[in-house]
């Protein structure tokens, strides 16, 4: 739906149909229109694209960065591991939203800074998950066998250890993705993320709230969209976990 957004949406995101303003849901405007006369359905559909690319790219960056840092930090151990992990601990000790607000305050609100925020907020979490797997795997004999064969650190990290982290990483990535959607929406709602007039869900909820008594549908539908996507991604993550958790012996 996010891909086909422009084709599906009957109206433009910011197209104002002044005469139709504040319409309740109808055949013409499935989700109604807001107080400026914009079609809520079109905005929700078009907004999906924004939310998903932003949180998707942000999660991807966090996963790549986090996995690499987790692998290196966990494998090398010692003071490097200590320093990296203590730094991440201090990042994690701040609530995600607070950290995001702090960062946005210094970066200034824009799409790119939202991307940076997602990456910074979720990299430590991904790194932690990957590191914990690395710590248990690096003591295993097949890793030691590779060391004794004189393999390079990079080969051991990415060929021997990395595959073992994939199940945990995949689950973590999908969870992070759903939280990222949430974060983007929250930031939009607080007005520090994507700026108007973009059809951002969080932003729409904020605008809808202001005119709640007149156009409640302008609040309900974007909020519902957030809920549906987050729950959907969570369900996918759950299924993924179950598939990946099947012990290898049973997968003959």
């Amino acid at each position, binding site marked *: 739906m996010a891909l086909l957004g422009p084709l599906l949406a009957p109206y433009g995101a910011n197209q104002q149909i002044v005469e139709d303003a504040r319409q309740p849901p109808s055949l013409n405007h499935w989700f109604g229109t807001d107080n400026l006369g914009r079609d809520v359905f079109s905005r929700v559909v078009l907004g999906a694209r924004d939310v998903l690319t932003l949180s998707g790219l942000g999660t991807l960056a966090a996963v790549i960065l986090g996995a690499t840092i987790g692998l290196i930090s966990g494998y090398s151990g010692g003071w490097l591991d200590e320093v990296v992990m203590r730094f991440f601990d201090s990042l994690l000790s701040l609530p995600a939203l607070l950290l995001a607000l702090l960062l946005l305050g210094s970066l200034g609100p824009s799409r790119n800074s939202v991307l940076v925020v997602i990456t910074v907020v979720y990299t430590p979490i991904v790194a932690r998950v990957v590191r914990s797997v690395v710590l248990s795997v690096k003591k295993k004999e*097949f890793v030691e066998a590779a060391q004794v*064969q004189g393999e390079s650190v990079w080969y051991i990290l990415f060929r021997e250890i990395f*595959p073992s982290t994939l199940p945990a990483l995949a689950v973590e990535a999908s969870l992070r993705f759903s939280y990222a959607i949430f974060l983007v929406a929250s930031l939009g709602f607080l007005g520090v993320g994507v700026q108007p007039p973009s059809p951002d869900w969080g932003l729409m909820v904020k605008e809808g709230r202001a005119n709640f008594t007149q156009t409640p549908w302008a609040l309900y539908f974007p909020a519902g969209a957030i809920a549906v996507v987050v729950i959907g991604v969570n369900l996918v993550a759950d299924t993924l976990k179950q598939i990946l958790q099947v012990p290898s012996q049973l997968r003959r």
Partner: protein
Amino acid sequence: MTNMAGSDNGYILEIEHLTVGYQQAGAWREAVRHVSLEIPKGQTCGLVGESGSGKTTLALATMRYLPQEGTVCQGAIRFRGENLLQLKDAEMRRIWGSEMTMVPQDALASLNPSLTLGEQVAELLRHQAGLSESDAGDRTLALFEQVQLGDVERVSDSYPYQLSGGMLQRVLTAMAISTEPSLLVLDEPTSSLDVTTQAVMLDLFRELIGGQQQTAVLYITHNLGVVAQIADRVAVMYAGDLVEDAPTLELYRQPLHPYTQGLLDCVPRLGENKAEVNLRPIEGHIPSLQDLPTGCIFRPRCPLATDVCREYPPLYQAGDGRRSRCHRWEEIKDGEVSPSQPVPEGAKIPPPSAAEQDVLDIEGAEVHFSEGRSLVDMVAGKRPRKVRAVDGVSLEVGRGRTVGLVGESGSGKTTLARAVVGLAERTGGTIKLFDKELPPGLRGRTADMFCCLQIVFQNPAETLNPYLSVGQILRRPLKRLRDQTPPEGGDGGIDEAVTELLEAVHLSREYAKRLPGQLSGGEKQRVAIARAFAPRPDLLIADEPVTSLDVSVQASILNLFNELQAEHQIGTLFISHDLAVVGYLADVVAVIYLGQLMEVSDAGSIFDPPHHPYTEALLSSVPLIDPEGQQEAIRLEGEVRSPSKEITGCPFHTRCPRFIGDICVEQVPPWREISQPGQDVDKRVFCHIPEEELREKQRRAFKFSE
């Protein structure tokens, strides 16, 4: 419901035609089939079998303690005449823990970590025997006394993590005998213990069982030596069938089932060496419950299989009190046919002659670790505690020779192996590969060194990367480390080489496509050996490579080592805790205790006195696979000392049964060369006691079988 006649015939336990099934992946698998077994009071019945034989399932079913997905499909279990299967759960709870008790294998997991041991035993006594608080406390101490727990007050106030595995096993034993049960089930109670501790535990079991004439004992183990030493009769299980059941003496003298014979033939006995005796592994592997063979289930692996064996054999009454599930038991009994497995080609290769060159030369090697400190300790300026894992070991491995390194857990044998390959940083001494000194850690080693020096690890489950196929695993070292050999036809040459390697370890070429999850433990270990041989090493370190394998698989892996080594003339450092295995495979045996060598000897003379007192204790602790074999019982007191404590004099002086006085505590012992009249032996012993005196003290008969 109680059947008085049943309890009068003296049988505590009567299992009749018991079949136990598990619900697995939607299908029904019978893990135990048509087993009948009786144990009268005062008798100990040993239940032997490899993993997957159904012995644990049988024991659990006997106690009516099967997991959720398991059910008794058929048969009856009579406990003092009462059919347990018809009892209500409440009645079972009365029986469990009082009339029927168990000593499990994993002691630490079986005890509550947050209660003191005294409380746990007292709780049981209050609950099951209805004792008052103070009576239960007194009785607990008396029980601890009975299982020889030394300082009983201290043990009673200890938490499980504070005691060693042997002590915990005693506590569990105390719990099991506290209610004077009618049936005592011992499930591999000594399998995770060191051999010296095992010997003490076996003595204890024998004594306790002897004192309880009303108790029937079911002793489950995979160890043929243990069962020979403790059981009155032995039942042998194979893939869910009871294949043979006989009084211990008769079973070991003449097994009447080819599987029993196979088991006995594939374990090296104490005192045997590959130069004189060949191991006969049982061909093939134990069938999975999904596809059991029709007819006799042992038929595909049996050297005696004929057409009659297509018929499922009944449990024949084979003479007085003996039963065998073999159609041809009479022929075996009369000696017309031999149920032994053929000796495989690989086992017959004669050992190489004396080495002309040393591959590995370890000179005073030391590995000292610092124990981890917490941040608080660091700030407080506490110095880290030094652990002397390896403390001045000197040892040579000649080309084409096998040096066996034996020691108990915590002796530093694995650390020494890791120091040689570079996984543990050496902190002192030198290790030379040929004449080149190896860097202390992995850093700074050249491709040449990696190539020359390979290791096979202990744990088959961890030794292969589960995400890489066998072919990928083998191709990598071939590509990287075998560069010097000219590539024949690019990648095709490598595929050839992979096939060659697989064939060398007796696996077919199809295995290259498989993932480690699809292999059995023995097959994984074969692949690990192939991987180690891929770069054509000159020195192979084998760190307990057969410890976690079943005995029949163990025999074929030992033969494989023998064969590959003779073919490639490589030196091997073979590490094991099993003196019989090391004595069988090695040319030279070194005994290690607390990071120091105690004795180095030709394999041929390691079993002849004089020994180092520690070697002597080890030898006398090994349970002989022969109920008639006799050993002088030398038991070690106390525990292995923590290697973080400062050691003075001889490291063994705290436990030495031949302790001679202050000299042992104060002075480092000399290495004494031992000579044997009329023989050319190479043997040295690290002891203050002079050779003649040792010989005099140790003049005793070690009576081995045959």
